[in-house]
C-alpha cells in the first residue's frame, strides 16, 4: 500500500465511479458528501436530499446563502435549474417506492450477507435514526463507503453485525480504502483492490468470509 493518500478521498473517488449518468442519488453524511468532487462532467447525476429537494447543487457562496435551503445534514446548499421541492412524506415515498436509484452512506458495520448497522452503538444513545432505515430499504442500490477498520483497529466488514441493525441484506457494494466488495446472492465477493492493497491486506482487516473474483 502506498499509505499516503487520504483514505476518505480514495473511498469517495472510487465510489463516484459506481454512479451512472442520469441516476437519482442520495448521499449520506461524511464520506458520501465528498463524492460530487470526484464526479466527472460526463457523470451528471441528480442529487436527492430527504428533507425535500431533488436537484441539489454545489455549496453556496456567501452571497448565495439562503436560510431556507439546507441538506439533510443541515448544511447550506444551492438548487440547480430543474430542481423541485416536496414535503417529507413525498420525499420518503420516493425513497421507499424505489424511485431513488442509489443511496450512498457510511456504516459502522456491514455483514457478509449485506446487513448494515449504521445508526446506533450499543450502550450509547439510540435516539437518532433519521432517514437511514428508509434509504437502505428503499433505494434500488445501496453503496456503503467506510474505512475498513475503526480507529482502534476493529474490522467493520464482519461476519454478523453486533451493533443494532439498520436493515438486513440490503447492501449491494462496500467501498473501503483497500477494497471493493459486492454482495452477490447473499454472499460477499471481493472484486477490486485499491491503492496497491493485496488480498492478504484485505483479509487482515476483514472479519467477514468472502470469495475473490477480481475484475479489471
Amino acid at each position, binding site marked *: 500500500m502506498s499509505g499516503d493518500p487520504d483514505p476518505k478521498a480514495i473511498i469517495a473517488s472510487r465510489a463516484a465511479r459506481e454512479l451512472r449518468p442520469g441516476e437519482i442519488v442520495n448521499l449520506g453524511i461524511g464520506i458520501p458528501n465528498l463524492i460530487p468532487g470526484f464526479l466527472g462532467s460526463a457523470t451528471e447525476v441528480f442529487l436527492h436530499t*430527504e428533507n425535500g429537494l431533488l436537484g441539489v447543487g454545489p455549496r453556496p457562496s456567501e452571497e448565495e446563502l439562503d436560510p431556507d435551503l439546507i441538506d439533510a445534514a443541515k448544511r447550506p446548499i444551492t438548487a440547480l435549474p430543474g430542481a423541485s421541492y416536496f414535503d417529507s412524506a413525498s420525499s420518503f415515498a420516493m425513497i*421507499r417506492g424505489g424511485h431513488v436509484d442509489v443511496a450512498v452512506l457510511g456504516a459502522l458495520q456491514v455483514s457478509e450477507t449485506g446487513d448494515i448497522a449504521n445508526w446506533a452503538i450499543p450502550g450509547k444513545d439510540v435516539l437518532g435514526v433519521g432517514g437511514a*432505515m428508509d434509504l437502505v430499504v428503499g433505494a434500488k442500490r445501496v453503496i456503503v463507503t467506510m474505512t475498513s477498520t475503526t480507529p482502534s483497529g476493529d474490522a467493520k466488514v464482519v461476519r454478523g453485525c453486533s451493533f443494532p441493525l439498520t436493515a438486513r441484506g440490503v447492501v449491494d457494494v462496500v467501498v473501503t480504502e483497500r477494497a471493493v466488495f459486492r454482495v452477490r446472492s447473499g454472499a460477499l465477493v471481493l472484486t477490486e483492490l485499491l491503492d496497491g492493497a493485496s488480498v492478504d491486506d484485505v483479509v487482515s482487516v476483514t472479519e467477514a468470509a468472502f470469495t475473490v473474483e477480481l475484475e479489471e
Partner: protein
Amino acid sequence: MTAAGLTSPEEAVRHVKSGDTVMVGGFGLVGAPLTLIDALADLSDATDLTVVSNNIGEPGRGLGKLLRQGRIRRGISSFFTSNPEAVAAANAGELEATLLPQGTFAEAIRAGGAGIAGFYTPVGAGTLLAEGKEERIIGGVPHVLEEPIRADVALVYAARADSLGNLWYRHTARNFNPLMATAATITIAEAGEIVAVGEIEPESIATPHLYVDHLVARA
C-alpha cells in the same frame, strides 16, 4: 375551516393545553414556527406536553427552550440527537423518547391527517425500532405495522399565507409543515408574510385553507 382568523402569537398558543399533543414543523430550525414556539415557551404555561417534531430543537433554541423548561413529557421524533440536551433528558428519565424512522414518522402524520388507521412498511422490520409492533410478511418481505399520529394542536410555518389561510412554502422549509397542518384538531400557521386572497397562484398553494384555523404573522 372557512377562513383562518388572524391572531397574536399569545392568543394563538392559548389553544395549547397542559397534557396536549403538539405537532411542530421544521427540519431542525429550518421551517420551524419560531415565533409560535417562543410564544409557547414565554407566554403559555401549558405543560406535560407530547411533542411531535422531527427534532427537539437545538440547545435553548426552538423546542430546546421548552425542553429546558421541563414542559415536554414525551417526544416523538426521528432524530433527538441534534439536541444533546434532549438526549440527556431522555437518559435521565425526564423525557420519554419515541424514535421512528423519518419516513415512517412523516407517513404516520400523513396517515393521521388522511383518515388512514395505519400502514405496513418494510422500513425498520427486524430492528430495535420494530420491537412491540406487529410484523407481517407481505409479498415475501417482512413489514411493520405503524399507527397514525394525530395531535391536538399543530404549529406550522409557511413563508407566505393569504388571509384565508392558504399556505405557500419556500424551498426546504416545507418539510413536515404541510403534513402536520392536516393532522391536528387545531392548526395554527405562522407566516413570513400575509397577502391578500388571490395573490398566491392557486396551483402553488400546498396547504389549502380548510386545514388552517388560526394565522399568526412571524415576529
